């Protein structure tokens, strides 16, 4: 393998894998962050243009350092494989623009001649991608191991499909589909108006029965894929739902609602106090009026008491008195003093209309005083109520005036503001500090709905075989009826006979297809038992059910529950079994001997496809780690293992089984210099360099 600017691998780096079956392991030691998973994905990208599950930043493949120096740099992975004496080369590359668009260029050659990408996929079928290139950290594939408590667990890998793919079983699938379509071909239907009613009806009944059967058979093929997809969907939805803790979310929402209510209440108090203050401010003049108006009323009262209002002497009489110079009542001549007095009096009562307005004004003023008192009483009650809401605010006196009331309200406003700000701050702190992760949609409902879809599909699939048998019987009866009624119409008879011929052939291919799965299952069961024995030498018997789920038996009829470590060993056996079967099945497919040889295939560690297992022991308890490490050389003739340098001692114990060792030397800033010991020598595995973000170099050790 040659990597060029692949992720953290700067420039060109090459690895030559061990091809010695006695030393099947190529070990690639790397510290965390060096790119072990990136290396695994270099395989899947080169061969399939795809990545393993959980591999992030798929549009960020070109090494950043290389791209910074030259923006036209490309990423490239070249793999050289050999099989059956032929050399296959696949080179996949992408420019910066291509990686952004998720596209790439691929070049394939076989023994130096350009060939199609499919030729590589014939060698390494895409259906087996996740087995040949196995991210052990994601152990989700372990779901192939049967679990009684979670019967509906699914795997992204359909083993029966994978096995049929190795056996070129798609040919049988295609034949069944094409024959079914042929049976409904227009050339086998009546092309002219059927004059005989009986034949016409029989023909209609046959067509209907045939269409129903075809639909049921189509469903039988299509539904399992839908079910697998629905199960995967349901499982994803379930996982999403499980990420959230409903109790925590409920508790948080309750507390959030409580704190929000406090904020709203405090705000209401602030608004209310402000409104009251405004009302008091608007009535501020009343404070002054309360003093001025009674004084005015008192003056008007005095004027009335003096006879000025209403006037007891008419102004015109006083004028005539002055004009005539004598009193109009007694006729006595006016003295100077008298004239002066009358003039003075005239000034005061000169305008009787003004005097009347004085009376009206007094009446208005009295009314105003009365209303002011009512307003004051009402506002005082409001202020008393407001003050009662604040512990530290004294209630205003019963005779408190506007000034006193405003002072009290002012005090309330200050406190309400403070409480409001405190409540808001408390809410913000709560939101910032204690918010649990919450879904934006009702993920629980979605998970339940998806599970219902799974159940519905399971029910439909379970009912289909019986339904198909019924439809086949009905269809055969309809065909027999049509044949019987077609006597005399040679064309009709020929068509029904042609359909029978197609049907016979279809039945044969269906049996072949089902046999490939069933007898492939037997081969697989034998292979996994052999692999498991080679690995762990335990007296367990492994059984593979019709759905390719694996159960472990220890001699009794009841399956045993494997421990986590045993499950991983089973999983590695599972990988080994498929990889051991792969070359034999491909040979069978090349010989077109599927119907003769499947079911009788035996496997051994001496023959098998290579696998790349990323960090195979990462899930182990240390005491099981040694067992797995010791067992891996017995698995297959070629295994590539990127692994953390942490457990290097264990791997050195099997040094005699390791053909090649490489170190992924990581240089980065903030990193301390570190070494790893192999073969009695310290080797650099981490280098500190503040001028480099992250750079990985592959260094051959042996």
């Amino acid at each position, binding site marked *: 393998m040659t990597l060029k600017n692949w992720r953290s691998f700067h420039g060109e780096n090459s690895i030559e894998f061990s091809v010695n079956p006695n030393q099947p392991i190529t070990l690639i030691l790397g510290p965390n962050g060096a790119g072990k998973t990136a290396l695994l994905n270099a395989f899947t990208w080169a061969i399939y243009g795809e990545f393993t599950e959980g591999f992030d930043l798929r549009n960020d493949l070109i090494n950043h350092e290389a791209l910074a120096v030259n923006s036209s740099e490309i990423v490239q992975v070249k793999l050289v494989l050999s099989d059956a004496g032929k050399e296959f080369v696949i080179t996949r590359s992408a420019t910066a623009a291509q990686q952004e668009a998720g596209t790439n260029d691929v070049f394939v050659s076989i023994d130096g001649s350009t060939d199609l990408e499919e030729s590589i996929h014939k060698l390494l079928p895409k259906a087996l991608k996740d087995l040949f290139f196995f991210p052990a950290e994601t152990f989700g594939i372990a779901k192939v191991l049967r679990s009684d408590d979670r019967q509906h667990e699914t795997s992204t890998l359909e083993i029966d499909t994978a096995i049929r793919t190795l056996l070129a079983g798609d*040919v049988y699938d295609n*034949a069944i589909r094409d024959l079914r379509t*042929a049976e409904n071909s227009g050339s*086998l239907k009546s092309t002219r108006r059927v004059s005989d009613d009986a034949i016409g009806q029989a023909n209609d009944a046959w067509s209907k029965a045939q269409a129903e059967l075809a639909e049921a058979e189509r469903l039988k093929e299509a539904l399992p894929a839908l079910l697998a997809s629905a199960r995967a969907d349901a499982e994803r939805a379930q996982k999403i739902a499980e990420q959230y803790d409903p109790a925590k979310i409920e508790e948080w929402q309750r507390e959030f609602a409580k704190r929000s209510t406090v904020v709203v209440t405090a705000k209401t108090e602030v608004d209310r106090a402000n409104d009251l203050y405004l009302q008091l401010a608007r009535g501020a003049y009343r404070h002054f009026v309360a003093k001025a108006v009674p004084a005015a009323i008192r003056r008007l009262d005095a004027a009335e008491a003096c006879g000025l209002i209403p006037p007891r002497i008419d102004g015109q009489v006083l004028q005539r008195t002055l004009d005539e110079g004598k009193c109009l009542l007694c006729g006595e001549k006016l003295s100077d003093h008298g004239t002066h007095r009358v003039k003075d009096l005239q000034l005061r009562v000169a305008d009787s209309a003004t005097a009347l307005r004085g009376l009206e004004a007094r009446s208005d003023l009295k009314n105003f005083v009365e209303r002011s008192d009512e307003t004051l009483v009402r506002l005082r009650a409001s202020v008393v109520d407001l003050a009662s809401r604040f512990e530290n605010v004294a209630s205003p006196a019963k005779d408190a005036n506007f000034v006193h009331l405003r002072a009290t309200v002012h005090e309330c406003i200050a406190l309400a503001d403070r409480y409001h700000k405190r409540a808001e701050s408390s809410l913000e702190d709560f939101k910032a500090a204690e918010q649990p992760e919450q879904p934006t949609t009702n993920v629980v409902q979605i998970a339940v709905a998806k599970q219902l879809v799974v159940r519905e599909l399971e029910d439909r699939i379970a009912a289909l075989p019986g339904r198909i048998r019924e439809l086949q019987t009905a269809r055969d009866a309809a065909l027999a009826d049509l044949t019987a009624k077609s006597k005399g119409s040679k064309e009709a008879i020929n068509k029904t*006979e042609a359909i029978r011929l*197609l049907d016979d052939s279809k039945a044969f291919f269906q049996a072949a297809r089902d046999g490939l799965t069933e007898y492939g299952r037997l081969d697989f069961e034998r292979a996994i038992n052999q692999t498991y024995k080679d690995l762990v030498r335990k007296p367990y018997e492994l059984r593979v059910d019709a759905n390719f789920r694996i159960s472990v038996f220890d001699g009794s009829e009841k399956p045993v529950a494997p421990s986590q470590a045993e499950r991983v060993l089973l999983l590695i056996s599972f990988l080994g079994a498929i990889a051991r079967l792969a070359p034999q099945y491909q040979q069978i497919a090349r010989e077109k001997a599927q*119907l003769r040889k499947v079911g009788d295939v035996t496997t051994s560690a001496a023959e098998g496809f290579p696998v790349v297992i990323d960090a195979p022991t990462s899930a182990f308890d240390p005491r099981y780690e040694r067992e797995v490490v010791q067992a891996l050389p017995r698995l297959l003739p070629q295994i590539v293992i990127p692994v953390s340098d942490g457990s290097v001692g264990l791997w050195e114990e099997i040094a005699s089984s390791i053909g090649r060792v490489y170190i992924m030397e990581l240089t980065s800033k903030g990193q301390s210099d570190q070494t790893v010991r192999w073969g009695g020598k310290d080797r650099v595995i981490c280098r500190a360099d503040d001028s480099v973000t992250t750079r990985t170099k592959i260094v051959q050790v042996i």
Partner: protein
Amino acid sequence: MITFEEKMARLGAALSEESRAFTRQVLDLELRNRFGVRTQLPEEFAARALKAVKARPQEGDGE
């Protein structure tokens, strides 16, 4: 349990000579067109089946 080969041999033996020959034709065509365009195959199969039936000796033929 009988092997796959035996099972398929029995199934093959149960087919008429005509059906066996036709099945071989189907398999050949499927293999030949495995990675090519296969859209015409159903019509081809229907035509071949009809042709095979028409080619049967008629009642009284050869007697």
